[in-house]
């Protein structure tokens, strides 16, 4: 893992005596895609807004590349490219003029850089048109372009695949992964699309009621030590007897066995030995959705 580029230290937000976000502390590393997950109202958006300076921090701090958002805002935010909720742009200006607005605010962004970024998000043909003529997907892509102009170290994206068609989502996912691999950017993604998060993220932080419930790698979350295997057999009751050693459940004509990977050969051997026909055996992997609901419904 690369070095830690974002540190949240005891981040807390209190509004009218209500603790919206409570004592969040974790690190995000260079080159990783970090997912922010949580039910509605958990405090994800508030946390993101605090990270980028849109909302004030009640207690704690966010450190970006060594600079504190609280005390050194301008230096810290220079390392961030962000889209919070939808990327709103000036509809009466062209895509190009919109990008120029942001380019002007930072030193050293050349025309070539702008063209490069426009090419990257696939808007070269439409960039001179007014944004009011753009489709939702195009606006999303222009929003991404505006994030990337100044080569930030950290990208913060709220629902980045919102409004994209499947091809667009795939492109976005590939592109974001490319950014982390080639440029070593850290990308923080907040999304409700669990299947997307599963495919895109390296680690996931789950937030509930303003508190951090857990930070785990995606693999860890999905693949636990002990898994459930589904075995399709010819004789269910006989199979049940054979597998009495394991925790077994019958569901819609299939046998669900709780076992570890090492147990599989033994299970098959036992069934074969008892003369029971086996038509198939597979892992019942829990999706992120199952795990997510499990964790947050505690």
């Amino acid at each position, binding site marked *: 893992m690369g070095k830690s580029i974002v540190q949240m230290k005891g981040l807390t937000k209190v509004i009218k005596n209500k603790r919206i976000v409570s004592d969040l502390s974790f690190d995000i590393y260079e080159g990783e895609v970090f997912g922010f997950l949580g039910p509605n109202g958990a405090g994800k958006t508030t946390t993101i807004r605090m990270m*980028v300076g*849109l909302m004030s921090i009640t207690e704690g701090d966010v450190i970006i590349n060594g600079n504190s958002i609280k005390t050194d805002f301008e230096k810290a935010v220079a390392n961030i490219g962000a889209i919070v909720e939808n990327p*709103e742009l*000036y509809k*009466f200006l062209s895509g190009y003029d919109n990008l120029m*607005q942001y380019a002007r605010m930072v030193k050293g962004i050349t025309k070539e850089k702008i063209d490069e970024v426009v090419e990257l998000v696939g808007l070269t043909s439409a960039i001179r048109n007014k944004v009011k003529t753009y489709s939702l997907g195009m606006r999303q892509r222009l929003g991404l372009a*505006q994030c990337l102009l100044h080569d930030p170290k950290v990208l913060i994206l709220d629902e980045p695949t919102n409004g994209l068609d499947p091809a667009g989502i795939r492109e976005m996912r590939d592109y974001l992964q490319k950014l982390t691999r080639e440029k070593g950017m850290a990308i923080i993604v907040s999304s409700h699309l669990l299947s997307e998060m599963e495919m895109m993220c390296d680690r996931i932080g789950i937030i509930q009621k303003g508190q951090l419930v857990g930070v785990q790698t995606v693999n860890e979350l999905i693949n636990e030590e002990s898994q459930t295997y589904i075995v399709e057999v010819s004789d269910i009751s006989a199979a049940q007897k054979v597998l009495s050693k394991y925790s077994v459940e019958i569901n819609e004509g299939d046998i669900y066995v709780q076992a570890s990977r090492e147990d599989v050969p033994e299970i098959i051997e036992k069934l074969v030995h008892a003369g029971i026909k086996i038509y198939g055996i597979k892992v019942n992997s829990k999706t992120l959705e199952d795990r997510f609901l499990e964790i947050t419904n505690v």
Partner: protein
Amino acid sequence: MTMIKLIQNEWIKIIKRPGTLVMIALVIILVGVVGAFTKYSEGKSQQVTNDKWKQVLQQDTDSLKKDLKEASKNDPNRKFIEKNIAVNEYRIKHNIAPNEERNVWTFIDSTSDVIVLVGLFTIIIAANIVASEFNWGTIKLLLIRPYSRSEIILSKYLTSILFGLVFLAVLFCASLIIGLILFGPADGNPSYLAYVDGHVEEQSRLLYSAKLYLLSFIETFMLATMAFMVSTIFRNNTIAIGLSIFLLFMGNVITTIVATKYEWAKYILFANTNLMQYMDGAPLVEGMTMVFSCIVLICYLVVFLFLAFYVFSKRDVTA
């Protein structure tokens, strides 16, 4: 010089909106219309200079001198009367007729009334410049940049004032050009007779007109600042514009009424926005001076700007 870049950005956002061009076009067309009207109603109210003007003026002056004798020491009109006497006597002495033939300078002075419209549009721009970013949602992207909130809001304020000044200049130039085309330059070189420190001075017409425009702009400037502040605090341009328009048209009337009863009226903003009252007429409330008004105006300005900056800097953005 990042402030210049910020102002450049804000300027583009104002100019590239079709509404702005409509505003500018309207003002120029209005000047043209006023010009056409004035020109073609020439026959009706022709002011002819005839030889009798000296006599008329002398009669006027005599009657004014009588008024002066009868006026009490503290009558605020004293200064006004003294000024008229001095100017009249100067005219008689130097043979300067009081009524000019219509020319570009009279036209420019008459179109100074259009400054109200310029003021109105400037107020609208100032009220929109912050509130619209919130309405559009673009404020989020604007603030996630390496600038303090103070810098951002300062750039917006400066741009709206700059817009007002540029618009004023456009009005002046349009009046100048249309005036020259329709009425031609003045014969000879008529100067403006200013009453300075107890005696009469001849001043350049250009200077006088420029001063007139700039001073008329003060009311606009103060109201635009107020609109800017209100729209920043309430994040709503409608309240800001409504309030400002109301005050633009009613402010003076209300203040005058209050002034007849209470002395503290002199602290009201509108009692001090017309600095011409010290040059051409009588102060609204006794004891007011140019310096006093300037100080009052600066105080209002500081309060307005402080409020706007403070609120903008501290508030959470949830838009």
